[in-house]
């Protein structure tokens, strides 16, 4: 069970005063304090946890964000930044004494520059919104998390979001040029710019994936890329998980890096097929979706080579899309995987560990064994090329025991990921969900060093203070333990 720090009594007592001061900065609908209207903000994509905040503020400019942060800084009020609230790790979970700083009204695309292949956007622009804005001109923004329809670029920066195509195009950190951020003290800082690899420390890299603990992102300069001439997918189904894993190894070993290489296990294939009727083979133990790019002839060449490789592993079925429509059909099930699992079990936890791809067969076998031990179903769908697992653990939220079991199961999977040389989270972030497991991956001294770096940005530990690090040793709980610089 996730614990949150005790609310500060002195802040709770000054609630009306804080709300009034926020209203003076952001007029009209921009400040929410009524119990009922706070409801939508009490949770995020990790909906098992709920906590209404003190208030919500929805600024429309960097200046307003800076004024809000200056106010909260002066009054000692904690702040939880929020984009679309799609975090699967509870990154935007409020605290009772915190102001939720929502960036969704800062949703303007400020500039698109095709000559320099960049776009300047506000933090509340959705991930897909960027691509939609430039796609008519043949461009796209590469990272494509499953939530891309809703999730916002500011949140993507906070979590260093990935997606199905990062095997080729990289994650958020690899596709940024600059940020406009506001520190907890209310100082507006431009990081990077419109150029690559700005001189000095890589603040852009450090801030990306810092889960809203170092500064609040208000503007992002992203790289946009020209789309390939076309893309096409193929589907390869195998008799065993190990065999599919070997096929993945053989593909990577052949020197071909597909733009996407997705893996689904039997439970996931069945769930997706029932949902999307994509024509997935129901007798398969594992299935790969492989996508390549280029001209028609180049696609044929690559798909031919991939087919030849897959054929070495005695596939149950091998289907190469002949048209864009057939490609979409192959992707349809995968893209709807979370929804499909949701139909079988309305409640599931989506895990996100990464493992060395060579450990895939062992780890999937262990997850299967654990599933039997816990008596909870699990479906696996993940990015095979980079070893980023997404086991979906199904449980019954109306039964607290089932939920706790699912949490213990998930924690055991993540520990296994670390044991085999992997990590707790590949793209969803630590948030509150994996906070208390950080000691599995890091030593106490390593965590203290990371905490001290947070403190270098936010000495008062006011910005998203209950995330990422275990509460023990976290100054948000015990201010006396604030890590010192020297």
């Amino acid at each position, binding site marked *: 069970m996730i614990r949150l720090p005790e609310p500060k009594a002195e802040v709770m007592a000054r609630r009306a005063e804080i709300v009034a001061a926020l209203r003076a900065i952001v007029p009209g609908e921009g400040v929410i304090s009524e119990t009922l209207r706070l409801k939508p903000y009490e949770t995020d994509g990790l909906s098992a946890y709920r906590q209404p905040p003190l208030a919500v503020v929805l600024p429309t400019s960097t200046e307003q964000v800076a004024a809000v942060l200056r106010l909260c800084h002066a009054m000692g009020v904690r702040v939880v930044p929020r984009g679309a609230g799609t975090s699967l790790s509870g990154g935007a979970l409020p605290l009772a004494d915190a102001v939720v700083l929502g960036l969704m009204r800062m949703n303007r695309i400020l500039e698109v520059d095709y000559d320099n292949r960049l776009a300047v956007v506000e933090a509340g622009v959705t991930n897909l919104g960027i691509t939609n804005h430039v796609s008519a001109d043949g461009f796209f923004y590469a990272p494509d998390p499953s939530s891309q329809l809703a999730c916002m670029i500011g949140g993507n920066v906070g979590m260093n979001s990935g997606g199905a195509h990062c095997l080729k195009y*990289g994650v958020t950190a690899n596709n940024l040029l600059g940020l406009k951020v506001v520190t907890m003290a209310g100082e507006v800082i431009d990081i990077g710019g419109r150029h690559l690899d700005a001189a000095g420390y890589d603040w852009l890299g450090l801030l990306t994936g810092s889960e809203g603990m170092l500064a609040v992102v208000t503007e992002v300069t992203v790289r946009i890329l*020209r789309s390939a001439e076309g893309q096409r997918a193929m589907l390869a189904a195998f008799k065993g998980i190990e065999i599919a894993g070997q096929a993945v190894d053989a593909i990577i070993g052949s020197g071909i890096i597909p733009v996407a290489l997705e893996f689904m296990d039997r439970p996931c294939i069945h769930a997706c097929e029932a949902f999307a009727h994509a024509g997935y083979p129901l007798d398969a133990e594992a299935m790969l979706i492989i996508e390549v790019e280029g001209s028609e002839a180049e696609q044929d060449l690559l798909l031919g080579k991939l087919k030849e490789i897959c054929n070495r592993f005695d596939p149950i079925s091998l289907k190469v899309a002949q048209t864009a429509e057939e490609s979409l059909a192959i992707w349809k099930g995968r893209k709807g995987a979370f929804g499909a699992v949701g139909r079988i079990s309305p409640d599931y936890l989506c895990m996100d560990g990464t493992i060395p791809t060579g450990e895939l067969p062992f780890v999937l076998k262990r997850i299967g064994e654990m599933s039997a031990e816990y008596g909870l179903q699990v479906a696996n769908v993940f990015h095979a090329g980079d070893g980023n697992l997404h086991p979906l653990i199904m449980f019954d939220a109306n039964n607290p025991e089932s939920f706790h079991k699912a949490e213990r199961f998930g924690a055991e999977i993540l520990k296994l990921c670390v044991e085999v040389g992997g990590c707790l989270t590949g793209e969803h972030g630590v948030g509150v969900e994996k906070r208390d497991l950080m000691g599995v991956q890091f030593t106490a001294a390593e965590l203290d060093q990371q905490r001290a770096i947070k403190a*270098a940005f936010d000495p008062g530990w006011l910005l998203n203070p209950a995330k990422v690090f275990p509460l023990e040793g976290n100054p948000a709980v015990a201010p006396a333990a604030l890590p010192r610089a020297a």
Partner: protein
Amino acid sequence: MSASFLAPDTEAGVAAAVAAAAAEGVPLGIEGRGSKRGLLRPVQAARGLTLRNLSGITLYKPQELIIAAWAGTPLPEIEAALAEHGQHLIAEPPDLAALFGSAGPASLGGIVATNLSGPRRITGGATRDHVMGIRAVNGRGEVFRSGGRVLKNVTGLDLCKLLTGAHGTLGVLTEITLKVLPAPSATGTIAVRVADLADGVRVLSAGLGSPFGVTGAALLPQGGVGLGGPLAILRLEELPESVAYRSVRLRDELARFGEVALIGDAESRALWRAVRDAEPLGATAEQAVWRVSVQPSAGPGVVAATGFGQALLDWGGGLVWLAGPATAAAHANVIAAATAAGGSFTLFRAPEPLRAAVEVLSPEPPALAEIGRRVKAVMDPRGVLNPGRMRAGL
């Protein structure tokens, strides 16, 4: 110059050396194999710490696209191991031995500590983008890790990125894990004669904005490969069939800009190796060398504003190499040009007195500089790691 050099051959030895330096308050001049000693500001340190003896590949899993090695490993050793499996370093780090007049090869640690990337940076990412994990020793002499040996990892603050490009001022890198990729089997180049540099950047932008996956886009003001300048060059790296197809498509698309030539595989590889190592810049031994990073369309303006005759533009026009007089006045020119273009500058190579006297890197806004001082104090409280290497007093 350092009076004495420590050369530990274990990570524990590195940690002990730093711990002792911290205890005694003795600054350490840290280097990988010392091939880029002339980079940035000179370090005034009584003691040197070289990683040349901490060397060797510790893990290589071609199928997992991962290689790890001790920081002092010579880069050619890593490149050779990768080549055996048909793989390569994605960011194409340069060999600057000629530029710095150094004898030995660069180390992996040195390339990561300086975050140097070659032409492929424009589409493949920088060295920092491929550092998946580090082990390092902080200024207290404590070993710490960040990242790991997997390709996707957002667990905790990304200290891999913080230390990459930090020139050894926040920690001594001991082991580095990199993402690698299969090396393309064929390379081809499209060369376009252009009227001037601005026209050249337009050609590069057209190429980079095409769907053909250009992996190098540079501008040679004096020309090259037997062709006169200015010459815009664009690289394709794919399967041979793709290079053949895409070369023709790109050639046709770029013909409207000027005379176009196709350059074959072997000649292409040599050409891009030269660009990677800044050879076409033609910097003489007494000249200073700068690297300015701007948005590509601003590159030609930077060259014009400095008034230097010698330049080389890479990264679509956004990376401007400049060679000019090693004087404070020339440096001021570069600062003005880079600042006006909204970019950043690095005084890359200069005689020691000049490097010691001027700001060698773009200054940071005051609020960020203050955070930088605090982060430095966290990582290196006694200030013993390469003091003054990047900025005076830091």
